């Protein structure tokens, strides 16, 4: 599903160069729930951004679903993200002027789906994440946990091949975090491929594999056959 070879990422600020990823090789198979862990500054979020097409690596190759994503133009990358990938951000990242339903419907709208179908699919997924009746609530009328659920609904509404989650529980209390992780587990059980960055080991209990990163390199893969 995802094949990464010799991936590097270097940030340049004036004369200072920071090598964040120093040669990553990895594979993620379809239906896998992978957690990327590591200390702060290890490069886990940077790795997620590269394989999630949000950033362009310095060198190496990334193949996502059979497509060499580094060969895509900016507009093709945007279209690829729209049709094949889903994102959950640390701080929910909902558009404040839009209601929960409108936030969720954005990817469908961009795909050119008709209004009736958009409404049907948006409301269904909002119902599925346990937010019935909150369609018209704006983000500031929702709790952090509810906002993250809406964010998950938005990421899942167009049925992406891969779901990327960047520390989805970082801003949530324990109860809300558990609920979000349960939601991800449910999605995984239905066959969803998920790549999640986290620094909290307790939230990796449903993952198939944990990739440990240290100083820009993968130090180990922890396969959890008996999760």
């Amino acid at each position, binding site marked *: 599903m995802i094949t990464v070879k010799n991936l590097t990422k270097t940030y340049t600020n004036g004369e200072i160069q920071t090598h964040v990823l120093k040669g990553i090789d990895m594979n993620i198979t379809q239906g896998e729930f992978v957690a990327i862990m590591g200390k702060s500054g290890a490069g886990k979020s940077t790795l997620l*951004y590269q394989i999630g097409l*949000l*950033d362009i690596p310095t060198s190496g190759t990334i193949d996502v679903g059979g497509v060499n994503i580094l060969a895509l133009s*900016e*507009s093709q990358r*945007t*279209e*690829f*993200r*729209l*049709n094949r*990938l*889903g*994102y959950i*951000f640390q701080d929910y*990242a909902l*558009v*404040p*002027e*839009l209601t929960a339903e*409108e936030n969720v419907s*954005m*990817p469908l*709208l*961009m795909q*050119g789906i008709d209004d009736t179908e958009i409404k049907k699919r948006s409301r269904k997924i909002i119902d599925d994440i346990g937010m019935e009746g909150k369609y018209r609530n*704006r983000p500031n009328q929702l709790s952090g946990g509810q906002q993250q659920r809406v964010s998950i609904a*938005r*990421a899942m509404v167009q049925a992406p091949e891969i779901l990327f989650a960047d520390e989805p529980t970082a801003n949530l209390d324990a109860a809300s975090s558990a609920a979000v992780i349960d939601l991800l587990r449910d999605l995984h059980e239905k066959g969803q491929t998920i790549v999640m960055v986290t620094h909290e080991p307790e939230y990796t209990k449903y993952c198939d594999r944990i990739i440990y990163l240290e100083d820009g390199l993968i130090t180990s893969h922890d396969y959890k056959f008996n999760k």
Partner: protein
Amino acid sequence: MRLVTIIEKYLRFIRVGSFLGIRQILRGSIWINILIISIMTLTFLSLVVIPGILIGLTEGSFEQNREYLTGDVYLTTLPEYSSIINTQNIVRVLDILPEVDRYSVRYKIGSTVEVGYIDREDFTKDSESLSVSAYAIDPKKEEETTGLSRFLVEGSMLKNDESGYVLIGSTLLEEYSAFSDLFEPLKGVEVGRPAKITLQGAALEGLERDRALVSGSAQTGQTSEFIVKGIIDSKVGELSSSLFITEQDYRRVSQKTSLQAQEIVIKHTQNVSDERFKEIVLSYGFGEYAKVRTATEAIPKFLADVQQTFGLLGNMIGFIGIVVSSITIFIVIYINALVRRKFIGILKGIGISERAIEFAYIMQSVFYALIGIGLGLLILYGLLVPYFFQNPIDFPFSDGILVAKLIPTIIRAGILMLVTMIAGLLPARIIVRQNTLDSILQR
């Protein structure tokens, strides 16, 4: 097929952009919306009102010239002649032309007016006199055509059945004249007091000239005493600086038998334009006997130059207004996009195209421009134009009105709309084109 795909893609951008744009406007800060719309309204008004008033100063003067001096079509003497040839033939045609609403024939004579000759203290000195133009008119016809009596500030209008009266323009009088530093105005002129008027030159034509030759007289004018019947004060300079006597008195004093006039002022009916009416009278051969001009063509050159200069000034001020407004819109949209940079990044991150996001900002700009211009039009045509029509600005040479013709106003509105769209698109594009991840992480 490829074209259809492209069209579909752009329709999708418009759909998503509208979806975002409308919600950003409706659910954004109402105070920012009010602020931007106010700026747009004021910019539009500055774009239309300031040039409109500047042009209105001269336009008011043009209108007064048309209404009270030249009429819609103005016949004057050909350059090589001293009078309109075949005046009476022209008059006969005017009497039967259905397009003619009313007209007045004027005889314009050089004259000298002399006052204070009865009660001056020192008879060894000359009495006060001024050389001015005198108009001999048919009072009834002149009143019907130009409503001359409306400019009477003292006294009353001449009558056809009266003799020996004169109307004097206020510019000639010390009490009214604003030009007393340029010439010595007449002092002590009052309604009911006498004034000696000498009609020059034109008296000695044809038979009169023969008589003068036979008598050996070197005198070139005929003098008679008139009673001042009224004082004319108008912003049409020609009226305020002339004398008016009746046509009968003119003939009596100058012993003139010729019926050749110097000016014919014509007002046509509403169903014909000035240009069309000019064509009609030219088709009757008027052009062979007189210089035929529409009111616009008869505008004094200096006034036309002033209008052109004012128009230029107005356009410059309007241009500055557009620049200021576009910078303001640019800054407002830029700040708006900058504070929303993270969400723009998120939208791009989830696959919303850059063009759709840019369109959302264009939508906002168009909304502000439409509402601002709409309000401006409402204020302009609902309030300002009627107000200035009822209460013209009192300028020395005209009653200034606000000129806001529809087509130029629409053109200005269109320019403002276009500039606003560009001013909205540019900052949005600057922000939207930034690296997606940098936007999301606010780096």
